[in-house]
């Protein structure tokens, strides 16, 4: 019991960020060079465009144990590929609503538009999302307390 509370006290949410290469990733970079502080909970994967983000990325991340996922891209109308973020917006919208319907806390999947110059915004978004994740707690969605290995019949 004591070890558990110790573990939980030390727990830091793991946030996976998919940032588009032209705007958001550059914005994150600028945050770094401008020495804008934001929590180190985020791990960043650079994708060419927010339109590259498949709902499978979000599901896989949650399945693997990440506490939250953030997708960030260019503002609508400013996409480097013209329309990528429009497609992303539709996918993000239905995924958000659907995951919440299923019982996944909305804080676990967040999205933002962040341009290459918006270092402050990026730092704020990450800080905010991390705070939200700390409130909802560790991702226990896919954890199974029962025995997995089927010595008893399954199905």
């Amino acid at each position: 019991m004591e070890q558990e509370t110790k573990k939980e006290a030390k727990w830091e949410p793991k946030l996976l960020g998919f940032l588009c290469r032209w705007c958001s990733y550059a914005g994150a970079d600028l945050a770094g060079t401008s020495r804008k502080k934001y929590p180190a909970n985020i791990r960043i994967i650079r994708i060419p465009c927010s339109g590259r983000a498949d709902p499978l990325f979000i599901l896989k991340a949650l399945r693997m144990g990440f506490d939250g996922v953030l997708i960030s891209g260019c503002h609508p109308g400013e996409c480097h590929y013209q329309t990528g973020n429009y497609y992303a917006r539709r996918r993000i919208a239905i995924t958000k609503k659907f995951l919440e319907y299923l019982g996944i806390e909305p804080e676990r999947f967040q999205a933002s538009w962040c341009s290459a110059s918006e270092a402050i915004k990026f730092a704020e978004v990450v800080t905010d999302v991390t705070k939200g994740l700390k409130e909802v707690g560790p991702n226990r969605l896919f954890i199974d307390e029962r025995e997995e290995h089927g010595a008893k019949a399954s199905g």
Partner: protein
Amino acid sequence: MSRKISKKDIGKLLSQWGEKFTVFAPAKDEGMAKMAEWDGKDTSFLDWYRNTVVPPKANFLPSMEKMFSFRQGEEGYQLETPSEIDKQLVFGIRPCDARALSILDMTFEDAYEDPYYLGRRKNSLLIGLGCTNPCDSCFCTSLGISPTESNDVDLMFTDIDDEFLIEEVTDKGKELLASTSGLEETTEAEVTKAKEAKEKAYSRVTRTINTEAIADRLLASFDNQDFWEQIAAKCLSCGICTLLCPTCYCFDINDELVGKEGARFRSWDSCGFCLYTKMPMENPRHEKWHRVRQRVCHKYEFYPMNFDVIACTGCGRCIRLCPVNWDITQTLESVPAELEKQKA
């Protein structure tokens, strides 16, 4: 030598057996019948039970099982095999499903003795329950299987209205019966009643197929693409008929790795899936009609050629559960009887 037990006392009987075994009995989950771990009190299945959706093969070849776990240490890999297998007692298995297990035994004992499957078989007891109300999709009688008699169970229960007649079939069953209390002796009249019940149940299986020379007829039709394309046209290539077939045994093996630890799993697979036979350079069963032909021939031609028995027990699940009502009995009836031509 037979005994009997009142239906009211089945709960007590299962509890008694539950002290030595993990007891499985029919249960309904969301309206779907399956063999589940008996909860200790519910015997309402006696009112509705005809047969389960998931066949009892799941108790021996589970839909998913861990074969072993492994860890990479400093001196190589350490393997850890699963612990002792629980003793299990499957109550209410139908003769068709029990025969299916004997058919599966032939494969798992063949070139390699599968310790997982055979370990479970060794550690379990099958308590058969004879049918009184066969479904209209059942056709066990055409395959030489009786809905009421079985050599593949350890004890056989026959429904005689308010009671069950219990017959010993194997030595294991005899042993179990000897150590079971609460059973009564049977009278001549009750034995006769059981016999009549069995005859009645047998006559209620109305679906029949002609299995005469079926292996030869299928062999002769093997290259008849027009025939097989027409047969396969409405199949959707899902896995229902195969995964829920009591004699199907195809499985997939996957390793799952996280860091330096992992486990190897075996899980059900289906020859109906398009990618089942895919290899790097080709897929010999890429066409749907290849796969449908494979399913029919495996059951009715290849298995008889290898093991002298048709690998189908007429349980009818494939007919009941297929989303497009693809019916194997219709297919078998329409296999061209070209035997005369071939012989000439």
